[in-house]
């Protein structure tokens, strides 16, 4: 049965956020008998409540609270108050994610050593190696039911995949398959197998796709050591005179401020909210925000180098049928500077329904050039580009100077300028994507600009040296030993891979570390 803890209970671990990082950490700790309170800003919608409708689902799940944007990225112009397409609901963005579960490549943990210094980029190596991460990757894959691992078959390819595969073969790509997906290809873990419904981004109504909402969270609750408190928006982390954190202040479902005491606080609100909270927790002892003696909180915001390529054919495709992202080409994910950029990118199948295609194909576009594309919606195929982008100090989350939210907390300003490496990579990927579809007979192709960011990374990054980042190799703040970061904001660099598997693996690893530190009474 789900636990209920007193606000004054200062023995609990408080986790802020219930997504891939927070939800996983909560369950892992609860399984070890550690008492956990997860404070989630959003409401609790179970998977039966999800809707197969893009705008209705967006209204149900998305984080729609106002944010500001700046910088030269096109999102700032097209979606000035929606820099990210992430979730405010129990389960966080694991309700919305597509399921792609890829391990980082070895060199992606050592970018500075591998790429060398890149002008205008703030590269450092991770304080963790692939070898150290491998056992945790294996645990995460087993937990999440990742296809192509543990003898689970890969998903069958849908129409969109078949077009991608035909193009990949024509271009001579070797590594093209339906991916490593945290989507059940067979019934397991008391959950359905994939029914090829589409609408993966709208929450899986079959619960075939892994989400903390209906895996980690109920399992944690069943131990009696986990309480999930929805509609609880944390606005400040408190600390004592010694600098140790002591609890968090949050607005409850009625907007009333409450304080939950804590032995340990773990921040997992995604890479915009997590630094926002640390910055907003400034005090006379920590005038620049918590865990920010390095000045790195909020900096090095990464969002992956993305973009899409859609193509029209003279015959029908119906790309929206079936699993949205079960299709990948990995050949370009390698590091090969002869292409004119460092790092690499993945190409993954993607489709949007008609309403979102109209909104995202060419935001602001109108007239026949735009509408004749949509006229052939059912003849379209599509892929998404996801590649490593460069961390830059200037790309950062800051607290807005004037605008505040309903609780009086300054809204986040998300600043992003593309690095020349990002642009070179995106242009290369557009060219390859367009060539791929042309090889299968596309009559028209569309290099489609990035959507509001789904992969938000790096704003509280891990570093060996405290001066270079915010947290150590366990996600523990360099400055405050009972404060942790448990989401993608701890990523030192972004890799080319969809980040969720790495977030989950880090959370499993972090739970072991926290439990060990607690029994050693060092925190």
């Amino acid at each position, binding site marked *: 049965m789900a636990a209920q803890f007193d606000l004054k209970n200062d023995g609990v671990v408080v986790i802020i956020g219930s997504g891939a990082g927070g939800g996983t950490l909560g369950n892992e700790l609860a399984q070890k008998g550690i008492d956990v309170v997860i404070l989630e800003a959003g409401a609790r919608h179970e998977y039966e409540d999800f809707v*197969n*409708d893009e*705008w209705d689902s967006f209204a149900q799940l998305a984080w729609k609270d106002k944010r500001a944007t700046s910088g030269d990225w096109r999102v700032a112009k097209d979606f000035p108050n929606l820099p990210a397409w992430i979730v405010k609901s129990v389960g966080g963005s694991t309700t919305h994610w597509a399921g792609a579960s890829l391990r980082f490549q070895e060199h992606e943990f050592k970018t500075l050593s591998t790429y060398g210094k890149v002008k205008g980029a703030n590269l450092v190596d991770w304080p963790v190696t692939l070898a150290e991460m491998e056992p945790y990757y294996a645990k995460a894959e087993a937990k999440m039911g990742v296809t192509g691992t543990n003898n689970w078959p890969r998903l*069958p*390819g*849908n*129409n969109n995949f*078949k*077009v991608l595969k*035909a193009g990949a073969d024509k271009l001579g790509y070797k590594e093209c398959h339906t991916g490593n997906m945290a989507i059940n290809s067979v019934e397991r873990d008391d959950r359905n197998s*994939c*029914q*090829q*419904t*589409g*609408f993966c981004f709208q929450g899986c*109504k*079959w619960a075939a796709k892994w989400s903390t909402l209906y895996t980690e969270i109920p399992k944690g609750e069943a131990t009696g050591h986990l309480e999930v408190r929805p509609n609880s928006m944390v606005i400040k982390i408190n600390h004592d005179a010694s600098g140790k954190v002591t609890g968090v202040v949050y607005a409850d479902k009625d907007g009333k401020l409450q304080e939950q005491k804590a032995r340990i606080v773990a921040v997992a609100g995604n890479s915009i909210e997590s630094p926002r909270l640390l910055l907003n927790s400034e005090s006379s002892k920590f005038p620049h925000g918590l865990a920010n003696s390095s000045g790195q909180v909020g900096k090095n915001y990464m969002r992956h180098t993305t973009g899409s390529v859609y193509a029209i054919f003279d*015959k*029908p*495709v*119906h790309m*929206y*049928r*079936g699993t949205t992202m079960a299709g990948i080409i990995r050949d370009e994910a390698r590091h090969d500077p002869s292409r004119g950029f460092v790092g690499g990118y993945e190409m993954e199948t993607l489709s949007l*329904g*008609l*309403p979102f*295609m*109209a*909104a995202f194909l060419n935001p*602001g576009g*109108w*007239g*026949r050039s*735009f*509408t004749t594309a*949509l*006229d052939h*919606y*059912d*003849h379209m195929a599509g892929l998404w580009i996801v590649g490593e982008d460069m961390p830059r100090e200037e790309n950062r989350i800051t607290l807005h100077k004037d605008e505040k939210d309903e609780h009086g907390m300054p809204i986040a300003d998300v600043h992003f300028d593309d690095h020349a490496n990002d642009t070179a990579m995106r242009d290369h990927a557009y060219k390859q994507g367009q060539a791929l579809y042309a090889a*299968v007979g596309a009559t028209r192709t569309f290099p489609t600009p990035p959507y509001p960011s789904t992969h938000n990374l790096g704003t509280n990054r891990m570093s060996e040296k405290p001066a270079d980042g915010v947290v150590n190799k366990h996600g523990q703040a360099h400055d405050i030993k009972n404060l942790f970061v448990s989401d993608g904001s701890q990523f030192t660099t972004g890799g080319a891979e969809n980040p969720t598997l790495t977030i989950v693996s880090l959370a499993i690893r972090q739970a072991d570390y926290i439990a060990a530190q607690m029994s050693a009474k060092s925190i």
Partner: protein
Amino acid sequence: MVTIYERKQPQERKLGLSRRELLKRGGAGALLIISGSAVISPEHAWGLETSALKPETMATLIQVARDIYPHDQVPDKYYAIAVKGHDETAAKDPAHKELIEKGIADLDKKAGEGGYRGLGWEEQRVALLKEIEKTPFFQAVRGGLVVSLYNQKEVWPIFGYEGESYSKGGYIARGFNDIEWL
């Protein structure tokens, strides 16, 4: 209240209009007529009543909507539904009413005698829209349309989009991998 209503009777007879009068009254593009506070499509038997905006304004707005997102296979009715929200907003917000009325009046003025709807070619009308592309009026109309036009479930089949699929058991037995031409 703005209502879109289907007409059982052919509109010509009901209004006592001859076919020739209709043609005289109609705009250059779609054949829309104004009667009282309503925009009526006699050919397709539907009407739209306005409450805040002038019906002439609404008729022009429908044409503007089509010129912004022209889909020749999509009937006017769906463009009318897509812009009717401006009448509802105008009823509550005088500033919005002025934005739309002035925006349309400006287009009519730019078009010269016969107004915006009197311009015979889409290219002529689009040239005027290009001139005002950066204005708050155009941005308000285009920005609203991208949701209000394409989020109508009734237009989805016209584009070959099937919408909700969970209740039908997904596509596992309904063609998720039925492509044959590769």
